[in-house]
C-alpha cells in the first residue's frame, strides 16, 4: 500500500506520460508483429479480394503503420485531459479542492491498470488460444461481459459497451478514488462517489457517442 501511496503522490507526470506511451507503443508493436499476420488478415477478408490486390493493400497498410505510433501520445493526451476535466468539474461541484495537475497525476497513475488486459490478451493468444481469427483478436477483452457472451453474434455497436464492462474498469475507478483520497485527505467513499458521478457521467456519454457513431457508420 505504501508503494501505491508514494506512486500516487510522487510520480512525475511527464515521465509517467512518456512511460505510458512507450509501453503502449511496445505492446502495440508486439501485437501487430506476432498476431496480425498477412495470412490472418487475408483469411479475415474471407478471401474476397484477389491475392495480388490483397498484397498491395497489405503493403500499403504496413507502410502507414507508423501513424499508429505517432497518434498514440495524442490519443492518450486527449483521454487523460478529458478524464481529468470530468473529475475536476465533479470536484468543483462537490466543493472538493483539488487542482487539475493533481487530478491529471492521479489519472496517469491509474491508467497503469489498463496494461493488464493488454498483457493478458498477448499471453492468451500466445499460450492458450493459439488458433484464432482477426475478430477473435478484436473482440477479446479479459474479465469482461464480452467474454461471457458471444459478442460476435451481437450487432457491432453493442461490442464496445460489452468490452468496457470489465473488472479492470472497476479497478480503475477504485484507483482513481484512492488517488483522490490521498491528495485531498477526504474519505475514500466520498471520493468514490465523486469518481462515479463525474468520470462515470463522462464515460456514459462517451459510450453513447461511440455506439451512435458505430450504428451510423458501420455497414
Amino acid at each position: 500500500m505504501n508503494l501505491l501511496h508514494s506512486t500516487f503522490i510522487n510520480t512525475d507526470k511527464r515521465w509517467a506520460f512518456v512511460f505510458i506511451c512507450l509501453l503502449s507503443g511496445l505492446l502495440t508493436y508486439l501485437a501487430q508483429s506476432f498476431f496480425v499476420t498477412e495470412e490472418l488478415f487475408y483469411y479475415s477478408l474471407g478471401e474476397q479480394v484477389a491475392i495480388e490486390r490483397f498484397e498491395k493493400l497489405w503493403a500499403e497498410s504496413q507502410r502507414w503503420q507508423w501513424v499508429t505510433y505517432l497518434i498514440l501520445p495524442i490519443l492518450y493526451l486527449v483521454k487523460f485531459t478529458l478524464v481529468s476535466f470530468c473529475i475536476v468539474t465533479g470536484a468543483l461541484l462537490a466543493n472538493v479542492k483539488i487542482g487539475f495537475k493533481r487530478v491529471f497525476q492521479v489519472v496517469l497513475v491509474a491508467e497503469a491498470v489498463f496494461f493488464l488486459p493488454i498483457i493478458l490478451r498477448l499471453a492468451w493468444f500466445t499460450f492458450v488460444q493459439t488458433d484464432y481469427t482477426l475478430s477473435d483478436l478484436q473482440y477479446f477483452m479479459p474479465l469482461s461481459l464480452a467474454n461471457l457472451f458471444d459478442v460476435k453474434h451481437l450487432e457491432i455497436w453493442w461490442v464496445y459497451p460489452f468490452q468496457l464492462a470489465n473488472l479492470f474498469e472497476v479497478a480503475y475507478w477504485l484507483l482513481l478514488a484512492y488517488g483522490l483520497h490521498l491528495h485531498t485527505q477526504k474519505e475514500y467513499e466520498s471520493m468514490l462517489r465523486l469518481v462515479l458521478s463525474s468520470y462515470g457521467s463522462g464515460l456514459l456519454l462517451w459510450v453513447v457517442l461511440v455506439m451512435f457513431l458505430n450504428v451510423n457508420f458501420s455497414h
Partner: protein
Amino acid sequence: MRKYVILCFILSLALGGFYLINKKAEEKAQAKEKIQTMPDFEFLALDSTVFSVADLAGRKTILVYFNSTCEHCQYEASEISKQIDKFSNVNLLFVSEQNLAEIRTFSERYSLDKQENIKFLKAPDNGFYKVFGSNPIPSIFIYNTKKQLVKNYKGETKVELLMMND
C-alpha cells in the same frame, strides 16, 4: 442542487442518445429485411429514361454501387471488363449517385457501354441508401433469377466470387 441538475442533464442526453441509436438500429434491421428481395427502384439510365426493376430480364442480377473516383470501383470495373464473357447471361447494373456525364465516361473507359445486359444508372442523391439501406462504396448485391438476394459484398470483390453465387 446544481450537481443534480447537471446529472439529470447528462442522463437526459444519454437517454436521448440511446433513443437515436435504437431508432437507427431498427432502420438498419428493416432495410436488411427489405433487400432480401430486390427492392423496387427507379433510377435514371444513361439515355435519361427511367429504369426500374420491371425492366430487368429474368436472369441473375449483379448490382454494383460505385463512384468513378474510387480506386476499388475502378479495379472492379476493369476486372469485370477483362472477363466480360463470363457475364453474358447476367443483368449487370452499375449504379452511382454521380452525374450522368461522369457515369457515362466511366462506362466508356472500361468499355462496358455497348452490351445490352449492362446498364449504368444514376440514383438521386442519397437515393441508393433510401432503397438499399446501405452505401459503402463499392457494394455488390447479387440476386438470383427469382430476385432473391444471394450475396451482398462490401468492398472490392474478385470476379470469381461474383460468378460463384447463383
